[in-house]
């Protein structure tokens, strides 16, 4: 009987996935008609327009590929910074963030985030399922800046990034099925709704809030969603002993460093790609300018975090430097198009400092965020939003507006996800049992070892003084 209910429990949640499948089948009858209707509409465009459309579309496509590559970076970073016994679980979550994310963003998210001109300045809108104006044949509208498919690909890569940030913050103790539910809600609802406020032409955009490539819209959303998860879940067993913070070292720093280097590379899709139109000397110039500010900030972040860590802990700590590079990347994301080069270095230096402070702050508050998702993406996401107000040179940029926009989006992500996690907790499917956690999610959730041939030791390290 108990067994039967257990199965049911599984089913209740996997049925979510089944739902997505059903949605597919339903849509079978909707899409083709739309597509055919638009077939004829393909407008004729001037030669220059044609060239611009071509180039914008293809460069955006290549940038989207770089952003998608970041999934590998996140996977490696998160795996490396956690215990070996949770490796399968983390990899699985990352693959599913992307896969479930793609499908849900396709069915719901894209329509919510880019509802179209009718919803300008609004809080909410829905432009329909799938990708409007998208067709398998010739360009629907060659006078547009780029193809709708390139746009979708680029946007879905961003959505998957926001989702995957959380994975690291909740590592080691969350039920896999609950994670799937979370992931679906974030990419299908939470992210696109606040994303619409800015990038979909919603109220924050109308207000003049600026966030070029998503320090706030993407990273802070992921970071604060992760914080909500970390708080509701509570720390891993043994992470705080009698109020004292105990390190739980990651099992493979090579993977972690590889992950960061991949993320750094992927960011060249994330930030420069967000220019969206690259055609023309001016656009191309700005696109590469963005790449330079991004690089300088990342480098400054790594150096600052190394120095700060060195001073504070008396040894140069590579995990700090790695987090610092990411912090610099997050911090510059909102303003990479509009700050001076010196400012990009300052933004990176501050980001590198902030990430160390953020990690220590969470330790003080006894919040367990295994990979530092909040310090990197949440805190430096805020910093990116505010730095735009401080160093930004774009017309109309104002610190006040930046403050409001940043605060609102962070609060949105934090509180909605707090509710989602709280509901999952109330339903009793959020956190695995202590025994399952101790054995590791790989065995308890997936019945597999990531490294079956290696005898791993886990308990032979103790906090100083114990």
């Amino acid at each position, binding site marked *: 009987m108990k067994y039967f209910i257990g199965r049911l429990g599984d089913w209740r949640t996997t049925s979510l996935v089944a739902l997505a499948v059903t949605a597919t089948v339903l849509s079978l009858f909707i899409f083709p008609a739309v597509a055919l209707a638009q077939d004829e509409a393909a407008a004729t465009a001037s030669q220059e327009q044609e060239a611009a459309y071509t180039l914008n579309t293809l460069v955006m496509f290549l940038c989207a590929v770089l952003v998608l590559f970041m999934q590998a970076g996140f996977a490696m970073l998160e795996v490396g910074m956690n215990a070996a016994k949770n490796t399968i679980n983390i990899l699985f979550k990352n693959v599913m963030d992307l896969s479930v994310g793609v499908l849900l963003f396709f069915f719901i998210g894209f329509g919510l985030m880019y509802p179209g001109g009718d919803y300008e300045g609004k809080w909410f809108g829905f432009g329909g399922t799938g990708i409007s104006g998208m067709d398998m044949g010739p360009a629907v509208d060659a006078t547009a800046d780029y193809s709708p498919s390139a746009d979708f690909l680029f946007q879905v890569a961003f959505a998957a990034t926001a989702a995957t940030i959380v994975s690291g913050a909740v590592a080691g103790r969350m039920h896999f099925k609950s994670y799937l539910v979370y992931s679906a809600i974030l990419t299908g609802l939470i992210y696109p709704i606040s994303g619409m406020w800015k990038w979909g032409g919603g109220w924050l955009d109308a207000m003049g809030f600026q966030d070029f490539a998503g320090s706030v819209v993407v990273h802070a959303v992921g970071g604060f969603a992760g914080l909500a998860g970390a708080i509701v879940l509570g720390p891993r067993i043994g992470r705080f002993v009698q109020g004292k913070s105990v390190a739980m070292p990651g099992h493979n720093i090579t993977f972690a460093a590889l992950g960061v280097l991949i993320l750094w590379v992927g960011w060249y899709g994330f930030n420069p790609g967000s220019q969206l139109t690259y055609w023309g000397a001016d656009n191309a110039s700005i696109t590469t300018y963005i790449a330079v500010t991004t690089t300088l900030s990342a480098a400054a972040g790594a150096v600052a975090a190394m120095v700060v860590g060195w001073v504070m802990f008396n040894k140069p700590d590579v995990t700090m430097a790695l987090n610092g590079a990411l912090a610099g990347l997050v911090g510059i994301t909102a303003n990479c198009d509009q700050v001076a080069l010196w400012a990009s270095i300052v933004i990176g230096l501050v980001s590198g400092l902030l990430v160390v402070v953020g990690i220590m702050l969470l330790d003080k508050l006894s919040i367990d965020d295994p990979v530092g998702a909040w310090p990197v993406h949440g805190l430096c996401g805020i910093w990116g939003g505010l730095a735009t107000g401080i160093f930004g040179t774009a017309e109309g940029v104002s610190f006040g507006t930046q403050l409001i926009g940043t605060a609102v989006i962070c609060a949105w992500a934090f509180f909605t996800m707090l509710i989602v996690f709280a509901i999952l907790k109330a339903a009793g499917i959020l956190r695995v049992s202590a025994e399952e956690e101790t054995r590791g999610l790989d*065995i308890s959730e997936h*019945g*597999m*070892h990531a490294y*079956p041939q290696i*005898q791993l*030791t886990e*308990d032979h390290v*103790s906090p100083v003084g*114990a």
Partner: protein
Amino acid sequence: MKLIVAIIQPSRLEAVKSALTEVEVFRLTLMDVQGFGRQKGHTETFRGHDLAVNLLRKVRLEIAVNDAFVERAIQAITKGGRTGDEGEIGDGKIFVLPMDDCIRIRTGERGNEAI
């Protein structure tokens, strides 16, 4: 002189070490081992295959002690090694072996002083 060999749960290592420290046993050698006993193993899967894992991770302690320390060491391990209040199947065993001699490599000391 005796050599005490104890097979314990990895999760009890810290507790056993504390208990031993309390009875003033400060030195030991440990290694990771795999145990096969009454405790049931679990099932793993790989691409749709079930694998029975009957060998369970244990930690093996090796402690050389003077005769006077044997009983307290055994008590300490027993106390620290139990999972929960009652102990659980799989908590392991202690084996007491006679030992003829003990030598400290650094000094060449022998016998009881060397332990």
